[in-house]
């Protein structure tokens, strides 16, 4: 989905200032904050959408300036998208994303997880859902070992698969024997 962006620019009256955890201030158009349920509720509660109300900077203690920058990029891209509805989530294992999203989320996994946490904190459902799908696409179709690498999971299981049975090496089994798997007897040539 894509939307044409009108050429209007935000005016000072319809901005609020948010402050990241490292103290950097960001000027946010109120229109952009509609995508964040957390910010939208805050603005509504403090009536920051009224021009006659003094707007104090909003501290976002859980979000760094780098994350805030990234989030603003998302909000600006989706500024004129229709409001996200809960039933827009389609749980699927076929993963296709628009090119902009793929480029936007072409970031290391640790940054992606931090961004997901930020999207969860600010309650930006479209971003949250998109990151979850991207994360799922990086897990699906992988072996346990590959998943461990992707998600940086350190195994805490003594056996690879827990069966409750004491470990005793099978002396006749050699791991090398499986390094090159081959059908036995060898399959006939096709």
């Amino acid at each position, binding site marked *: 989905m894509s939307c044409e962006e009108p050429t209007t620019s935000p005016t000072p009256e319809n901005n609020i200032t948010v402050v990241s955890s490292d103290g950097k201030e960001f000027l946010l158009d109120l229109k952009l904050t509609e995508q964040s349920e957390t910010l939208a509720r805050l603005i509504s509660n403090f009536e920051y959408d009224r021009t006659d109300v003094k707007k104090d900077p909003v501290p976002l203690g859980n979000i760094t300036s780098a994350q805030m920058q990234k989030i603003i990029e998302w909000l600006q891209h989706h500024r004129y998208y229709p409001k996200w509805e809960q039933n827009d989530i389609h749980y699927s294992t076929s993963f296709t994303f628009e090119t902009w999203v793929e480029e936007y989320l072409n970031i290391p996994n640790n940054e992606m997880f931090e961004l997901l946490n930020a999207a969860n904190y600010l309650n930006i459902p479209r971003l949250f859902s998109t990151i*979850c799908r991207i994360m799922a696409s990086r897990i699906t179709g*992988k072996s346990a070992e590959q998943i461990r690498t992707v998600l940086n999971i350190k195994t805490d299981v003594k056996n690879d698969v827990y069966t409750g*049975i004491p470990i005793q090496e099978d002396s006749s089994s050699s791991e090398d024997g499986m390094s090159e798997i081959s059908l*036995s007897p060898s399959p006939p040539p*096709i």
Partner: protein
Amino acid sequence: MLLKLPYLAQFTILKHLELHDHFFLGVCSKRARNLIKCFSRNKNDSSVINLYSFCIQLQKTGFLGKDVVMWASCYYRPENETLYRSNTNWNRSIIFWYKDKKIKCKISFHSTKGIPILWCKDKYKRMLPMAIYHSICEIFSISPIIQIKFEMSRLSEFPDTNEIDNVIIGCRDKDQIEEFLKNVIIRNATQLWLGSCQLSVDSVILSLEHALFWSPKWLIKEHLISFRGQTALFVDPRTIGTDDLIDFILHWQQGKNMKLESLVIILNDYESLKFDKEKVFEKLDAKPWNPERRAGRFKKSTAMRFSFLTDFLDCTGQMDIERESDGLLATVIVREKQFFFFVWHVPFPNTSVDQPFTLPHSLAGIPQFQIGQ
């Protein structure tokens, strides 16, 4: 990283994944396994080792099983060759432990099903399905009852267990299945396809506790009389008629069978064979239901599930016969295509569990009833 996310994020990611992804995630670490356990709670009731497709499946009551993983050994079979040749990356592996043995498997993915195939050495081909099965039960937090579906021709690849809870067997060789049944303990239900082989009345097959026989072309009156288990269900027999029902009922009434709980026969709707209700009851000293002598609803003692178009355990208003020697009551229900014989060992059973439910996806859009918990 995933494990440090809020639950909502974890669950949203997991919802996008397939069962085999959950399985592999569950073997990564104890914390990951706990996450999968929590996520999978109440989603599946049981697991099935399916030797027709060499898949381990997860099953929810009323639904078909869903494939989780396949297994294959290096032993050559034509289907293995296709699976083997369609894979180019043999660098992925996983280790299982079963009966003190370390089973190292290579992993490939099925080209159309998309599920992983775990390849093991030929000597572990019977252990591997059990090892995967126990792992799946552990990871998905389901009861480790052992359910196996297999064709007797694949007996050499039968999982390494001699105790089974529920089993579905296809077999054309009576001797082979009799030999098999002598060597395994079946704790609950057995479903059998025996083809057209002839069965002697002293066959061990007629001693199965809870048996469902599909298309028993061999079925004759003597088999009904000689059944030594608790529950029997014969679907689509071709040679059983009204006189056979009468003889079976009279034999039970005059005999001392203290074990039989229920015997059900379902005829094929498309065959001309029919039961004659009036003729049956002419020969019996049957009495209408007396609510003071037995409950209205029969309690089935087995977990075997079968679907009917009606709530088949409802015996209110049905006719009963009484065995003079011990006063035991049995309800006899005869319809054109169905025969039900329920013995009331407990006249007023607790029927608070095992109630019927309507199947969510019934054949031809007609609601069906199934017993389950």
